């Protein structure tokens, strides 16, 4: 009985500790010009990280979290002043957190592409060919519409055609499934624009698709070491990344935005 009582006492103590100190500081970032000197939350290794790092010289402190969601959590609690992240995941976060909002101005425009090993030009070529076909057939647009757009969301999922020959083996895709709507878990399965597009690519090229979920900053390492055949993770083409991997043709555009507290 006493053991039970002490357990209850310990839990109440913890909860009361949790309750205190939850008042957050008011928002201080209203535009890109406010960024110098602020604490900026990003996901480690993302383009948001790269852009934010430019402000380090101007006195900003960059907090690099393993997950975008952790950065957003820190923002909610006032541990960072703002979070720089891709537009679509930002929208997903803001939808789920009524105390956050996205600043109107776009931070940077960028293009997403598939990253591939420099040692496998053949795969790069065939993926580029298949991407062009999928684009002209409207499949890519269909997949994007299925995830983005209030009136088209969930209306036009991609379905693999019947009787696809998958004799070419397995194509392993490395991703970080915490990036709605590009890749995220739904009913224990990884879904999203990138996942569906990869499936469409595999259907065209005759592969079985296997998706590996890992930390975002590990994806390029996985591709260069051959642990994965391609990295599809809303990945932007950057100069630095081109030194280690090749990129396919871009398949969509995206913007970086700034999330702040209301």
């Amino acid at each position, binding site marked *: 009985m*006493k*053991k039970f*009582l*002490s*357990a209850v*006492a*310990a839990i109440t103590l*913890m909860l009361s*500790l*949790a309750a*205190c*100190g*939850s008042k*957050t*500081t008011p928002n201080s970032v209203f535009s890109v010009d406010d960024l110098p000197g602020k604490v900026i*939350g990003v996901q*480690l*290794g993302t383009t948001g*990280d790269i852009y934010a*790092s430019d402000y380090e010289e101007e006195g900003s402190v960059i*907090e*690099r*979290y*393993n997950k975008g969601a*952790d*950065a957003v*959590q*820190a923002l909610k*609690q*006032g*541990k960072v002043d703002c979070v720089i992240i891709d537009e679509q995941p930002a929208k997903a976060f803001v939808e789920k957190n009524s105390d956050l909002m996205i600043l109107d101005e776009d931070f940077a425009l960028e293009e997403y592409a598939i990253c591939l090993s420099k040692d496998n030009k053949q795969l790069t070529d065939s993926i580029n060919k298949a991407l062009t076909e999928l684009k002209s057939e409207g499949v890519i647009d269909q997949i994007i519409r299925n995830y983005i757009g209030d009136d088209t969301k969930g209306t036009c999922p991609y379905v693999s055609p019947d009787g696809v020959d998958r004799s070419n083996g397995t194509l392993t895709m490395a991703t970080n499934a915490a990036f709605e709507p590009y890749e995220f878990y739904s009913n224990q399965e990884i879904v999203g624009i990138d996942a569906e597009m990869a499936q469409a690519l595999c259907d065209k090229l005759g592969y079985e698709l296997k998706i590996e979920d890992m930390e975002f*900053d590990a994806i*390029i*390492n996985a591709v*260069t*070491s051959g642990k994965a055949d391609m990295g599809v993770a809303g990945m932007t083409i950057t100069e*630095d*990344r081109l*030194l*280690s*991997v090749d990129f396919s043709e871009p398949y969509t555009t995206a913007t970086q935005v700034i999330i702040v507290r209301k």
Partner: protein
Amino acid sequence: MEDFKLKFYTNFIAESRWRYITEGLSTTFIVTICAAVLGVALGFLVAVIRSTADRTGPKKGAVMTCADAVCRFYLTVIRGTPTMIQLLIMYYIVFTSPDISKRFVAILAFGINSGAYVAEIVRSGIMSVDGGQLEAGRSLGLSYIQTMTHIIIPQAFRNILPALANEFITLLKETSICGYIALTDITHGANVIRSQTYEPLMPLLAAALIYLILVSLLSMGVTKLERKLSC
């Protein structure tokens, strides 16, 4: 060799990337030392309470029963959950306040965690000292606390030194999960470099080497101390 030089340059020299490692080193160092001190303090306290309660048996007073129950609860919860989750709970649930120092949160999380393991190590040490020693001390007119601090604990300490060193080594390496709260320790520093250069070899090897050196230094210190105590 040229390749090696270039890689070394991009990973550590360019854009002063070595600073991620040195900053990480200082964090790892401070967090480990402070957590170890906190852990030892907590561990000794819990161990003394637990072994006293065990020794006095069922006729111990209400205060002791309560203290013993709290200690048992602490040991069960801390040893029964992963350190990483404890760290995340500490950062995102317990200390939600905006201007909390991350190092402080890490020290507290690792210290409380380590304390549970130290407690059991110290308790095993106290139990390893013959019961007659306590009786002798008490019959010489020393109080229970005096007997503990002057007779039992010094002997116990010598016995548990290797196990304690082991715990500190584990603690040092366990701090590598600091990255989960965006605190730059050695591992997170290496990860930041890796995310900028996309080059896993150098940063990871450098981090591993630093841990190895730190652990070797620690082991050397403990060996010296052991030799000093084994009179």
